[in-house]
């Protein structure tokens, strides 16, 4: 089943067509890879989907709902979480507080209705609400084996743990689908191995994963489905086997052979 699809999505920055009529399909419950050379428009496409940016044209359908051009906070409440290429943590807060921020709209009843009444209630019940959030955040830290670092400031964490924490914060919002923007960038092989385990556990948890990644070993090992972008256009889509042998993909990555 398709949980998310983009229909002919384009983004034009001045004279540059960053994303050109891309149909990107995400299958529910699978790990979907999005690869392509640098500047292919992968992150731009991510930004369109997660509401960080508005597409120039085209439509984005998530879970049967048109989410094109909605603000990021709304989209995240519908169930799309993301991480960032350059890690964006709340550096001056502790690890557990970072995850608590991810739970922001999970306390109380519904993510959209009655928020103001909720906010007033939470003003008077701050302590009990904090405790509830704290427990939930701790259970997410346990899921990622980060509970030992809970009182550490986010800025003091080693790089690999910062990546994990960002994923934990995104997962805390209970998303249906999580977008990971180059999670393995700058990681050594052992850390990448560990990350693979994390992504597998996210999948087992029932959350669809969309992954931008340059590490081909990771992508080929873990993705069920791969989409390839080059110069803003989709050039291929299929299983890792199909992508590996696709001549167009090879050309995009290695260049064309001179005749």
């Amino acid at each position, binding site marked *: 089943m398709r949980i998310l699809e983009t229909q002919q999505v384009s983004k034009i920055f001045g004279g540059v067509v960053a994303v050109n009529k891309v149909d990107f399909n995400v299958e529910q419950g699978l790990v979907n890879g999005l690869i392509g050379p640098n500047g292919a428009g992968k992150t731009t496409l991510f930004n369109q989907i997660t509401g960080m940016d508005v597409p120039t044209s085209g439509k984005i359908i998530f879970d049967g709902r048109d989410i094109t051009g909605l603000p990021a906070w709304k989209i*995240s409440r519908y169930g799309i*979480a993301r991480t960032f290429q350059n890690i964006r943590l709340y550096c001056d*807060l502790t690890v557990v507080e970072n995850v608590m921020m991810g739970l922001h709209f999970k306390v109380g009843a519904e993510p959209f209705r009655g928020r103001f009444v909720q906010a007033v209630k939470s003003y008077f019940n701050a302590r009990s609400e904090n405790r509830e959030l704290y427990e939930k955040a701790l259970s997410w830290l346990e899921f990622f084996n980060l509970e030992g670092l809970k009182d550490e400031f986010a800025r003091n964490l080693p790089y690999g743990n910062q990546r994990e924490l960002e994923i934990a914060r995104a997962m805390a919002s209970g998303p249906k689908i999580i977008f990971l923007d180059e999670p393995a960038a700058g990681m050594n092989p052992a850390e990448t191995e560990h990350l693979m385990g994390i992504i597998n556990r996210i999948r087992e948890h029932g959350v669809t994963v969309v992954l931008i990644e340059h590490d081909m070993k990771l992508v080929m090992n873990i993705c069920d489905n791969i989409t390839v972008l080059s110069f803003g256009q989709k050039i291929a889509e299929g299983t890792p086997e199909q992508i590996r042998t696709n001549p167009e993909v090879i050309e995009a990555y290695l260049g064309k052979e001179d005749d």
Partner: protein
Amino acid sequence: MLNFFQLIIIYAGIYALMAIGQNCITGNTGMLSLCHAGFFCIGSYATAIICKTFGLPFWFSLPVAALASGIVGFLIGVPTLRLKGDYLCIATLGLGEIIRNIATNVNPVGMMSVPRAQLFGYQFSSRNKFTFILLIWFFVLIAYILFRQLAHSRLGRAMVAVREDEVAAASNGINVTKYKIGAFTLGAAVGGTAGCFATAYTLTVQPSSFTFMVSVMVLCMVVLGGMGNLLGVILGAFIIEFISYFPQLVGLSSVIPAQASQIIYGLVLVVMMICRPQGILGRDKYRYGDPRSTFSKLRDAVKSRKGGEVKA
């Protein structure tokens, strides 16, 4: 001399209210705003108009002053809070000046002999400073309790998220614009109440007194005491007020020109930035991560200590 100390304490109270408002905007939500003098002006005028022109009691003017500057804060906030950092600073600076200029043009001479505030027939006058100290610091206490609770609640947490990283906050489902406008409105409303008390004390309103320097002074209090730290902010208000009355206090006001205090607190700020950039009491430390009450933390600490002694 005692009289003079009392005066400083009263002004420190009025400015502590302003600084609590500024703290909500700058310390918690991270918006650099420089128009608190404008809100101060609106609060002062609202009180003067209600008490003198309409002849209504002071207590009625208090919520009106808060509401009036809150509404102005909201109206200013909606268009300007899309700006960030320095740009927001410049825009709010301009708006503060606009408010002052409107006041100067509409009412160039100011308003004199505003009726005194009364409570159960007792008149709060500047002759009996002690009761006025009680009045103003009672309201500072209320503001402190309310804003402390705010900082500990979900709203305060979301405000901190907005301060730390707007993009990440939005990706966590926090409506950044709403929280920014909300914080700005609240901060403006508290600035308005400060203006209300200033009028109740001096019984006059002078449009020329709401200069840009007032906004800078309030911002200095927040930076000096510690951004986001309410107690620090109140301490900052004390220190800045003390410095600005220093020449009179040591009886050298004829020797030291009034402008000298500006030099002194410029100097204080520079020294602070070099030696202790996080402010005197440090930045806010609302550890949402430890939801236990202070009492139970203390109890646990005592328990663990006893346990350790038994083992030894």
